[in-house]
């Protein structure tokens, strides 16, 4: 690999190889890739990585490169898991080796975006803006999903699922996708003070 151009070609070819390994059908391969990436994000979050998204991307990059270089992999997901554990181990060592700044009692590496985040705009304000930017149907689903009875219980999700003609798990998955959008939106809003552009269409 001699330069940036070669690196990009390698990366693109490696990614195509990974997708082909996930599924011969292009669309199903993309769906499988997104599912795998989500699993990685959850793994790194639950194992307390400071930047789960970056760790997930690093893992997938390494897996793609290994496949491109001809590594023989019998079962892909266990292989991905093994690479993820290594990336997690390296991440923990990297964090432990860096000088720490303290925020909210947690030592974070200097320059970590979580440390530098501008919190001038409150989460509630940003969430209001981000909810307003959702399509009305999605917004209604989210707000009904989190409606509490005021006595420490959240009820009505089974009814909501029936009303929408979906299973409870499908409803949860839909709300989780909406949450992911809202979390990304509120993070951007709090950092930049930006008002999210309205998006139409189903999730």
């Amino acid at each position: 690999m001699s330069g940036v151009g070669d690196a990009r070609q390698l990366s693109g070819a490696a990614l195509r190889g990974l997708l082909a390994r996930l599924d011969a059908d292009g669309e199903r391969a993309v769906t499988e890739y997104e599912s795998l990436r989500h699993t990685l994000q959850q793994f790194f979050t639950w194992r307390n990585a400071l930047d789960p998204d970056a760790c997930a991307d690093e893992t997938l990059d390494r897996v793609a490169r290994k496949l491109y270089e001809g590594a023989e992999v019998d079962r892909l997901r266990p292989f991905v898991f093994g690479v993820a554990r290594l990336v997690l181990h390296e991440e923990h060592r990297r964090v432990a080796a860096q000088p720490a700044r303290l925020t909210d009692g947690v030592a974070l590496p200097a320059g970590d975006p979580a440390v530098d985040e501008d919190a001038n705009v409150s989460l509630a304000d940003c969430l209001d803006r981000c909810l307003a930017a959702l399509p009305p149907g999605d917004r209604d689903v989210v707000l009904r999903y989190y409606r509490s009875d005021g006595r420490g219980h959240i009820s009505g999700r089974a009814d909501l699922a029936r009303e929408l003609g979906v299973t409870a798990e499908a409803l949860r998955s839909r709300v989780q996708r909406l949450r992911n959008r809202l979390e990304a939106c509120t993070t951007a809003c709090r950092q930049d003070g930006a008002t999210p552009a309205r998006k139409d269409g189903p999730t």
Partner: protein
Amino acid sequence: MATADIDLRRYLLGQLSGEAAADLEAAYFDDDALRARIEREEELLIEAYLLETLDASTRSAFERAYRPVPARWARVETTRALLAAAADAARPASASPVARPAQAAWWREAWLPAGLAAAAALVLAMWQPWRVAPAAQPDTAVATAPTPDASAPDASAAPPAAAPAPLPAMVSVTLTAGLTRDNGASARVDLPPGGTELTLVLARDGAEWAGRSVTIRNVDTGAEWQGPARPRRGTDPAGTAAIVEVPAGAVNRGDYVVAVAGAPDARFVLRIR
């Protein structure tokens, strides 16, 4: 063998052994349905925390697992905000705004681990510009007798004269592991109007924190102030104190977490009224 929901919760709380956690992770990497079960369990766990239906032990474990990790705590805060938004959307238009729910859920226990052997004393010194003072008490005269309330001014001060000078009022509050906001022993200080300089004296075990950075973070706004802890003048070499001087206006009324850099187990809760 199917994984019981209780084990999923224990995984989320970091209570599984390393081997058991690795086995579960290998399993959910290969099984999206299992991963979805863990996500559902996390959703229920976060909601139970915010709706204050967790028992004390689980609540404490939750805070230990989630509070220090930004990506995990962001999920809690997002859920909290969604619960509040849903409550606001559900109320009649004429009703008064619903208080954001469960803001104080994590206040139930101070973030001092059970393993901390001895109490750390947090002494708050209030400089009151409108009081005429005798010479400011030296640091060595900081009150060491703990008092339950942080608001009492110095009763021995001279009556006001034409040109009032700052009068330091020293109050000591003792925090212990398992402290709750509601048991009357939390650290509270009444902030008078106008600028007030605040001096935090970290007593017991405080000497080892001298030279470190201390962060005071508002729980609701996230606003932070950072400053150094310095050794208290005249401190007994065997002892125990470091001082953090917080300038006037740096903190306002609200609930705060006081944390010491490099000592993740050293946290204090402070209410400024």
